[in-house]
């Protein structure tokens, strides 16, 4: 069974029709890359899965999105519970202006976890998973804002992992980072695939090729092509896709 099932989804911002009749099935423990020119609706699509678009005043949608068979937009779904299962990493690192420790434990505190031993364990475990432990273990009380951009982004990943979601949404997680930090994040994605289902938006074709199993190409709000990453990059079925990945537009 697929982890995520998108069925005929349309999204509007006011009268602006930004996603048009999108259908897609995503298998568990895969990495799916979402590519396409700027403004084609990748972020909007990604933010459907943790209902972050709900915060936008004139957001409207129709269609269905099923997470393990359950419609996440059904009226009896608690958005907070959904967001614990579907974690998100943003384009710009956005740590809380608190200590490293407090950043990682935030999600657990929200759930009422107060046991010191549990929190300590979660902090070490998540920071190790996010490949940040060795760099910060000496001073977990340091302000997160004192970390480098790449470290901050890995902290944001650790913060999400601490909540133990099933799905990770990443919106250009490495676009603000240098090549070394980017490589670390890509390595991380490989590791995390064992336990998580990952959706990643990227403008970097090489990155999409390196990290993903499946790739979806969006243009003007439509899902033009969705297939194995290898197929998309070697023999795409649509000329638009071919043009985009070879850099002829977008």
């Amino acid at each position: 069974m697929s982890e995520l099932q998108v069925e005929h989804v349309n999204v509007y911002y006011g009268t602006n029709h930004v996603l048009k009749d999108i259908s897609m099935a995503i298998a568990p423990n895969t990495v799916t890359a979402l590519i396409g020119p700027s403004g084609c609706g990748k972020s909007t699509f990604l933010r459907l899965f943790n209902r972050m678009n709900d915060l936008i005043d004139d957001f409207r949608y129709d269609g269905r999105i099923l997470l393990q068979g359950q419609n996440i937009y059904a009226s009896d779904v608690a958005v907070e519970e959904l967001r614990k299962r579907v974690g998100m990493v943003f384009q710009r690192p956005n740590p809380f202006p608190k200590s490293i420790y407090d950043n990682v434990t935030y999600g657990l505190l929200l759930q009422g976890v107060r046991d010191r031993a549990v929190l300590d364990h979660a902090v070490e475990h998540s920071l190790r998973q996010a490949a940040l432990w060795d760099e910060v273990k000496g001073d977990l009380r340091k302000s997160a804002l004192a970390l480098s951009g790449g470290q901050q982004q890995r902290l944001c990943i650790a913060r999400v992992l601490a909540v133990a979601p099933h799905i990770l949404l990443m919106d250009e997680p490495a676009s603000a980072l240098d090549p070394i930090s980017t490589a670390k994040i890509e390595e991380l994605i490989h590791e995390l695939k064992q336990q998580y289902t990952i959706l990643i938006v990227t403008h970097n074709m090489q990155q999409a090729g390196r990290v993903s199993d499946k790739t979806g190409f969006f243009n003007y709000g439509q899902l033009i092509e969705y297939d194995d990453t290898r197929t998309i990059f070697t023999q795409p079925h649509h000329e638009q896709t071919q043009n985009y990945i070879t850099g002829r537009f977008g």
Partner: protein
Amino acid sequence: MNSMARNRLADRIFRVVGLLATLLGLLLLAIFLWGLLRTGLGRLSGQFLSSLPSRFPERAGIYTALLGTVWIMVLTALLAVPLGVAAGVYLEEYGRKRRWAALLEINITNLAGVPSVIYGLLGLEVFVRFLRLGSSVLAAASTLALLILPILIVATREAIRAVPRSLREASLALGATRWQTIWYQVLPASAGGILTGIILALSRAVGETAPLLVIGVLAYVPFAPSQPLDEFSALPVQIFNWISRPQHEFGVNAAAAIIVLLVITFGLNGVAIYLRNRWRQQLP
């Protein structure tokens, strides 16, 4: 003359005019302070601060008025701060899309501009007469609380609005409810701005004279208030009373009392500026 040279000339003229305007303001303030200090500084003493009011200017002090001012400051803060901050948070976080909230917003901005005498009349009717609080500390503090409520609401909303959207999104995306996000992220991040607003509002309240006169606050009260329903005096009322007397010595007393009042308000403003700077440095 080409347009570049003209722009540069206009720029220079503007700078000179701006400088003159600033200097004029500072000069007037300096003259005022100089006159005040020359008249009043000699009268300031421990005796002046700790004496009760009296018919004899040289024996009179501001003890009861000073304590009265401290009382209304604390009580006004206790009444206005929770209400103002809560209303600001509600309007900014929950009421933004509602039509009546827009209506409220216009009215609150207008209320901030209503002359303080009007608040005094409202306080007289509602607190002094209808609720039978008399000319007590509580009645005065309630009136001043109403007066600064709009300022607090506006300051709270502005401080909250300055919190970056990314902070909220980070919190919500981790499964926080709206209220958890406000409590753990938005309020701490805007605390500096809110606190600055509170202090500026309080320093405004401390200097208000008209509403206190309207609700009948006395100049001659021979004891310091010991509970909220006591009658009391306050510095601005004492100053007003002394200034309106013919004897020169009372004028000296007034100048000395004004210095005390100015120290309080400048002190409060100084704290506000300090907090604002510290808060600015902390933002990411």
